[in-house]
C-alpha cells in the first residue's frame, strides 16, 4: 500500500518480537545432572529488551499523524504458555498477537526465518526486537532477519526518529553513540536506554482478553527448525576464591601492594 501524501510510504504496521524468558530477577541455577537450568516453578516474563521494543512501537503509534503507524502486532515463538506474555503485550497496548507455537527450542536463525514468513505476510514497515534474550544471550535474531529480508538493521538502538520513509537511529556502541540513517522497512533492535516501558493497568488487562491472539502451528510455516548446534553440557560458573576484608584504606593499600598492584 503506497500513500503518496506521506513521503511515498505508508508506515502501517510494526511487528514486535516478545520472547518468553526466565524473569530478570531469578537467580538461574544449573540442574545437578548438567542437562540444563532449573525452570520448574520459576517465574517467566517478557524478555526485558523486548518489553522496551514494544514500548517503542507503542510510542511510535501514539505519535499519530507524524508516523501513520496504525497497528502494533506482537509475535512470539514458544510453548502454549507463551500466551501469558503475549496477553501482557496486548495489555500494554499492542493491537493483536501471533503465537508461533512449539515446545522445542528454536535457534536464532530459525527464529529469523519464522519472522521473515510473518514479515512477508504482514508487510510491516518496522520490526522491533530486543537486542538479546537474557536467557541464551545470543544477540543474533534481529541481524539475521535483516539479512534474510535484505533490509537495513539498526541494532542496540537508544533513540529512534522517523521521518518519511526513513529512520534516524542512535545506537549504543563501544565507542559511545553512533547515529545511522536507514530506509524503511527496517529491523531495529533495542538497548536499555531507549525508553522505560509502561506499567500495565488492570482495565487494560481486561481489555487485552478480547484482543485477537492467533496461534500458528510452527510446522505450517515450512521453516526448518532442527537445531544446528548441540549443547552437550551445562555447568555452573567457576567460583572465585574467597577474598579478604580489610578495615581501612591503609590495609587496603597494603593488600594491593602484596599483589603488586600498588
Amino acid at each position: 500500500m503506497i500513500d503518496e501524501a506521506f513521503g511515498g510510504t505508508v508506515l502501517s504496521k510494526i511487528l514486535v518480537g516478545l520472547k518468553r524468558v526466565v524473569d530478570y530477577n531469578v537467580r538461574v541455577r544449573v540442574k545437578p545432572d548438567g542437562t540444563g537450568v532449573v525452570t520448574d516453578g520459576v517465574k517467566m516474563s517478557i524478555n526485558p529488551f523486548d518489553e522496551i521494543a514494544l514500548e517503542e512501537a507503542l510510542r511510535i503509534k501514539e505519535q499519530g499523524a507524524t508516523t501513520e503507524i496504525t497497528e502494533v502486532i506482537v509475535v512470539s515463538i514458544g510453548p502454549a504458555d507463551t500466551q501469558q506474555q503475549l496477553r501482557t503485550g496486548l495489555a500494554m497496548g499492542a493491537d493483536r498477537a501471533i503465537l508461533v507455537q512449539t515446545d522445542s527450542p528454536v535457534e536464532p536463525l530459525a527464529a529469523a526465518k519464522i519472522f521473515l514468513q510473518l514479515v512477508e505476510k504482514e508487510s510491516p514497515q518496522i520490526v522491533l526486537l530486543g537486542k538479546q534474550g537474557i536467557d541464551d544471550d545470543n544477540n543474533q535474531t534481529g541481524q539475521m532477519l535483516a539479512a534474510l529480508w535484505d533490509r537495513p538493521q539498526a541494532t542496540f538502538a537508544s533513540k529512534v526518529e522517523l521521518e518519511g520513509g526513513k529512520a534516524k537511529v542512535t545506537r549504543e556502541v563501544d565507542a559511545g553513540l553512533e547515529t545511522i540513517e536507514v530506509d524503511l522497512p527496517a529491523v531495529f533492535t533495542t538497548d536499555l536506554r531507549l525508553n522505560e516501558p509502561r506499567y500495565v493497568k488492570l482495565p487494560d488487562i481486561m481489555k487485552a482478553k478480547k484482543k485477537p491472539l492467533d496461534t500458528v502451528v510452527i510446522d505450517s510455516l515450512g521453516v526448518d527448525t532442527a537445531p544446528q548446534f548441540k549443547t552437550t553440557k551445562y555447568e555452573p560458573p567457576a567460583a572465585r576464591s574467597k577474598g579478604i576484608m580489610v578495615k581501612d584504606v591503609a590495609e587496603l593499600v597494603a593488600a594491593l601492594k602484596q599483589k603488586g598492584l600498588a
Partner: protein
Amino acid sequence: MVAKILIVAEHAGGKLNPSTAKCVACASSIDGAQIDIAVFATDGAAVAAEAAKIQGVKTVLTVNNAANAEPLAAVLAPQVVAVAANYTHVFGPSTTFGKDLMPRVAALLGVGQLSDIAAVEGAYKFRRPVYAGNAIITVEAPQDKKLVATVRTASFQAAAQGGSAGVEVANVSASLPSHTRFVSRSAAATGRPDLQTAARVVSGGRALGSADNFKIIFSLADKIGAAVGASRAAVDAGYAANELQVGQTGKIIAPELYVAVGISGAIQHLTGIKDARTIVAINKDTEAPIFEVADIGLVGDLFTVLPELERVAG
C-alpha cells in the same frame, strides 16, 4: 581436516582494535588452525600492517572500498561472505562491532552463529556463558557447515606481537546496499585508557548519587591510570555515559585490577567482571553481594574512603 579460520578485523581511525588479537588467540587454540585476517576499509594498508604483526597469522587480506569508511554491518556483511568462501570458520569479536556484523554474515551464509566463545575444546566444540554467566554450556557445531562465531574477548589474552604475515589486497565483487548510511558518532575524548582493554578499571555505582559526585571516580581513575566504568544503575540514573556500562548487556571486561565503588553487585554486573584478576569492593553495605566475589573488600563510606585512597595511591 585443517581448520581455515578467517578473522574479521575491528579497527577505527586507522588503528587495529585489540579485540582482533584476542580473536587470533582464540583461533590459535584450535589445533593446526590456519589463521587469516581480513581488513575492510577505504584503505586498509596501515591496519593490515599492524594485523600482520600478530603471531599466528598467515595472511592479512585487505578489502579496500570507499563504502567501507564506516563499519556498517549491512555494507560489510556481503563482502565478508565473499571472502569467507575459502574458509571453514569465520570469527569476529564480541564487541558491538562484531555483535552487529557477524549474525548478518551468518544468515547470508545460511548458517547459525555461535556467540561469545569463552573456551575452545576442539575445532567444532566450544564453551560459552548463558543466563548472564550463571551457566557455562559446552556446544558442538556441525562439521559440515561453515562456523560463524564471535569471540568473548575477556576470555582471551591478546596473541603476542612479533609475527610477519603476508599482506594481500583482495578484490571482492559483491553488490552493496545503499539503504543504510552513517550519520555521526559521538565519543567522549577522555584521554583515559579504553575500558574494554584497560589493565585497571575504577567503576562507580548508584551509591555515587549524582553525576557530580561521580567525578570522584574519574579523579581516582586518573590518579592510578585506570579506565572508568559504571554499573547499569549508575548509567540509567544518568551519572555516567552509556559506553561505560559494565555487565551482561554492557561491556564484559577482564582487567588486572577492578575497583568497584558503591556497586552492590547484581549478577548482571558480576558477569561483566568475573574474569578480572583482582576485584576490590568498597561499599558501606556489609551485605552487598559484591563482597562475595571481591578479593579485597572494604566496608565504608565511599565519600570518605575515596579521597583518602586518592591521597595515598599512585
